Structure formats: C-alpha cells, structure tokens
C-alpha cells in the first residue's frame, strides 16, 4: 500500500498513475450520467414552453373545447376545471384515509403481523400500474353507475392512497416518542394524543407528502380514460355526467394530425406541467420551511 503515501519505485509510480487514471475516468463517467439525465428534461421543458406558450391566452384557459378536433383556436377551460375538480375529489378521499391508515401502522399496529402485511401490500400497491386502477374502477363502478368525474376520482384515489400512507408513516416515525409519552402521562387518551400532539408535530411532512401524491394524480391519464368519458363543456358536478381532464385531452389531441389539435395538446401540456411543478415545488418549500426541528 506504499503507493498511496508516495511512489518509491518506478513500478509503484506506474500503478499509482493507473489507479488515479481509472478514478478520474470513473468520475468523468458519473458526471456524464448527470449531463445525460438533464438533456431530456431541458428538451421537454423547452418544447412544452415553446409550443405551448404559443397558444397560451386567456381564451385558451377559459373557452370551451371546440366541437371538431380539426378546428383551430382555443379552448381548454373545461379540461382545467375537470382536472381540478377530479383531483380535488380524489384528494378529499385518499388523504384522510391514507393518514388514518398510516396512524394505524405507526401508532397502533407497529410491528405486528397485520401491520407488516398492510405495509408490504401498500408498497406493492404503489407499483400497481395506473391503467389497472382505471380498469378496476371501470369494472366495479362505471359498469353499474356510468361515466362520471367521481369514477375518475375513485381511480386516482386508489393511486394516491398507498403514496400518502407510506410518506405519512415515514414522517410519523420521526416524531419523538417523548412527545407521545408526555401527552399520555398527562392523562390524554391515545386518540387525543395522536390528534393533538403527534399529527400536528408531523403536519408539514404530511402536507408535503400529500402534495406530491396530488401532483402525481393530477398528471395521470390512464385511470381517467375509461372512467370519466369526454365532455367539451365544463362540468363541475362530479357525480353526474361525463367529464374531461387536461391529461386525457392531451392524449386524444396528440394522436390527431390537425394543427389545431396539436396546438391544443401542447397548450394543455404546458398548463398541466405548470400545475404539477407548482405543487411539487410547494411541497419542497413546505418541507424545508415548516419542518419541525426534531432533536
């Protein structure tokens, strides 16, 4: 090992040079990986901003979708409304349930058999393809009650649930046991301890985890394709009638050869990306700014 401390023989010097060379080469490769990963992001953002920015206007954000896909001109208002309403409904279902389930895993079940199974299965559930969720809701809901925004929201909620559970549980685990013990020692019930001590201590982490789940759901297309149908007018009633969303509009318009449809697809893509990126950045900021200093 004398090579490291200084080359003493010509052979050592040669070996040292070679080892250093390999090391530099490797470091170079790793930097290349970073560059390669950045290329598609830059390219996508560039094209979405360039092509989507060209059609962006107040009319685009508010007007109804044209009847004919080949017609030129704006209109994605109903899709924006649909995305917000459907994602909102999915959030209202998945986030509370996900938090409660995480509370069960971390506060009640801990390492018992059932909790371990649920934990593993919610990990597995994060891997279930989104199109399968769409088919699932189609078979269990749409066949009976028809297409509606709510059906889409159910499918998105199924996708979000395991993400919320896992991220919330990670955060709950960081809440120091001392907080719980102090509250219990004061005579508070477990429910009260959880609701007034544990969850508030973890709230920033929970919110940022939930926002990431919302961001993921807002961009999903596959679960909505056969659950919400299609509509060219805004429909704020999620329980009644077909609906539409930015993601499904991008998908349908992307396959059309007409310039009008292509332009609307890019415009919708820009709108959707802005929405999703804002949510993601918000999640980051909340985690950073409001993180409760623990220990």
């Amino acid at each position, binding site marked *: 090992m004398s090579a490291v401390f200084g080359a003493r023989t010509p052979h050592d010097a040669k070996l040292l040079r070679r080892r250093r060379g390999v*090391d530099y080469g490797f470091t170079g490769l790793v930097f290349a990986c970073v560059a390669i990963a950045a290329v598609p992001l830059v390219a996508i953002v560039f094209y979405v901003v360039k092509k989507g920015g060209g059609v962006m206007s107040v009319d685009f954000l508010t007007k109804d979708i044209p009847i004919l896909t080949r017609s030129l001109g704006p209109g994605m208002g109903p899709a924006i409304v649909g995305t917000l309403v459907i994602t909102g409904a999915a959030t209202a279902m998945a986030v509370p349930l996900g938090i409660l389930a995480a509370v069960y895993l971390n506060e009640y079940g801990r390492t018992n058999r059932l909790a371990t199974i649920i934990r593993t299965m919610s990990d597995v559930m994060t891997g279930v393809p989104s199109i399968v969720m769409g088919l699932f809701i189609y078979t269990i809901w749409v066949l009976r009650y028809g297409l509606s925004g709510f059906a889409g929201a159910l499918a998105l909620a199924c996708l979000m649930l395991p993400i919320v559970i896992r991220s919330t549980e990670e955060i709950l685990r960081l809440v120091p046991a001392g907080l719980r013990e102090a509250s219990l020692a004061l005579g508070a019930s477990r429910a009260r301890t959880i*609701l007034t001590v544990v969850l508030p201590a973890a709230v920033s982490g929970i919110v940022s985890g939930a926002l990431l789940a919302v961001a993921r759901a807002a961009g999903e297309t*596959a679960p909505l394709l056969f659950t919400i149908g299609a509509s060219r007018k805004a429909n704020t009633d999620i329980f009644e009638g077909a609906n539409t969303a930015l993601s499904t509009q991008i998908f349908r318009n*992307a396959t059309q050869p007409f310039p009008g449809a292509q332009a609307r697809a890019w415009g919708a893509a820009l709108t959707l990306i802005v929405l999703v*990126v804002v949510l993601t950045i918000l999640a980051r900021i909340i985690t950073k700014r409001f993180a409760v200093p623990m220990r």
Partner: protein
Amino acid sequence: LIAVAQKSLLHGGARRADRLFSWLCLGSGLLVLVVLGLILLSTGNEAMPAFRDEGVGFLTSKVWNPAAGQFGALAFIYGTLVASAIALVIAVPISFGLALFITEIAPKKLRTPVVYIMDLLAAVPSVVYGLWGIAVFGREIAKVYDDVSRTFDGIPVLGNVLHGANGRSFMTAGIILAIMITPIVTSISREVFATVPRDQKEAAWGLGATRFEMIRGAILPYSRNGLVGAVMLGLGRAMGETIAVALVIGSVPSIRASLFESGDAMAAVVANQFGEATGTHRAALIGLGVVLFVMTVIVNVLARKVAGRTDRRLGGKA
C-alpha cells in the same frame, strides 16, 4: 404499559371515542388489502369470457384479431418485455451513476440541483412524455435509426436487431421509458447507498483506496441486494407505464426482432383500444390488465424481498 395504565383513568365516553378512533385507523389500513383483493376479483371476473374462450392461448397465441374474435396476447407481452428491457439497459447504469454522484461524488453545491432535476423528471406527467415522444423526439431519432440500420445492414444478428427506421418503435418506447424510470431507480439506489456503514467506507479510504476503489470495494458489495431491488422496481414501473408507450410504440401487434420497427405493449393496447371495444374484445383487454397486474405485483414483491427493504426499515435503522 402506559396505554394500559391510562386506559383505566379514562371515563366511559372518552374511552369509547378512543376505541372508535383506533377502529377507524385500522379500517383505513385494511382498505389497502380490500382494494388489492377487489382489483383481482373484479377485473378477473370481467375478463372471464376472454379467458374461457382462449384458455392458455390467451398467453401463448400471437394472433390478436378482434374482428375475427381471436385474442392472443403474446405480441403485447413481447412488446412490454422488449421495451422494458431497453429501458433498463439504458436507465440502470445512468441511475446508479446519478445516485453515486448525489451520495458520494457531488460537491455540496451541485447536490441539490441534481436532486431537483430528478424531482422534476419524476413530476413530468406520462402523457407529456408521450406528446414529446410522438411530436418531437420520435421524428428526430428516426434519422439516427436510419443511419444505424444502414451501418449494420447485412451483419448477422445485429443487422436484424437494428433494422428499420421508424420513429414510433420499440426503441423509442424504450428510450422514453428509460427517461421515466430513471428518477425512481435513482432515488431507491440513493437510499441503498446511504445505508452503507460509514466505517466500511472509512476503512477503504484508510487503506489508501481511490474513490473508485472505495465505491467498488465497500459500497457496491454492501448494496448489491438493494440495487437488484431498485432495478426490479424500475422494471415494474416500466411494464406498467401506459400512456407514453401507447403514443410512441406504434400500435402494431407483432413479434419481430428489429427494435426500430413498430410494436405494441400490454398497457398501451388497453389504452388505445378500450374505447371502442365491446364484448369479448373488451373482456380480453381487461384480461390483459389482469395479467399485467399479476406480473407487476410479482415483480414488486420479489423486488422488496430481494432488497429486504421493509425489514430493514422495521429493524429501526434510521
């Protein structure tokens, strides 16, 4: 013990509320199991007509002809596997590199931006990748395919595999998938690298290892299982990815070796054909969903088994 002691202190109403809350939590937890079970039951049930008609042929026949009532899914399974394999070949080395960069190599200043790039790549919706793939990337890359296939023309094996020049092809789908799974493989590999004990790394440094030697000698051996798990989770993602693939793979159900020609994949064909499908055709598409569900669940369970991820977390290693 505290729980037992304090339970007796609570009076009736509070105790009931307490009990109610714990049941509520348990119920929410059980929901995961219920949903997973229902997915299999409900979709399996609707897919029955197709499974009954085709039997094992559903998985082994390569003829998919809705008009003639023939539903063999082999071409789609083939397409899914080929596109996912291309994605892994491209994404895995890059992801490992990125993970090493973030955990071991990057100066502090560069670490956060790279993590941000990964977050944003993960945040771009699948359909936007698809739109970019079909309208921009596919068109540009087709020229490259053309050059490559000309170069390798006539050479056995390679000439066949690298044949064609279609922008909507297995290769395009594979590349887009690679971009999409890079963030998840990177973030899991990062987690894995972060668990390597400090003293192992320091021991390697102390022996005079260069950084590369430290990574090869201390980090990689310790992380091997975790990395295999990360790759398999990436595979699960790639197999289930729908919309981007539906847009760029070309939608031609065929089994051929040439990567630069159109094909089709399981999730993609469901997205593309479900809208106008009825009867057995619809049942067959749902059946594809069932097969996909089973495949991804198996891959995910195996991945977590190999990585021992759940266990390690439970072990209390923070």
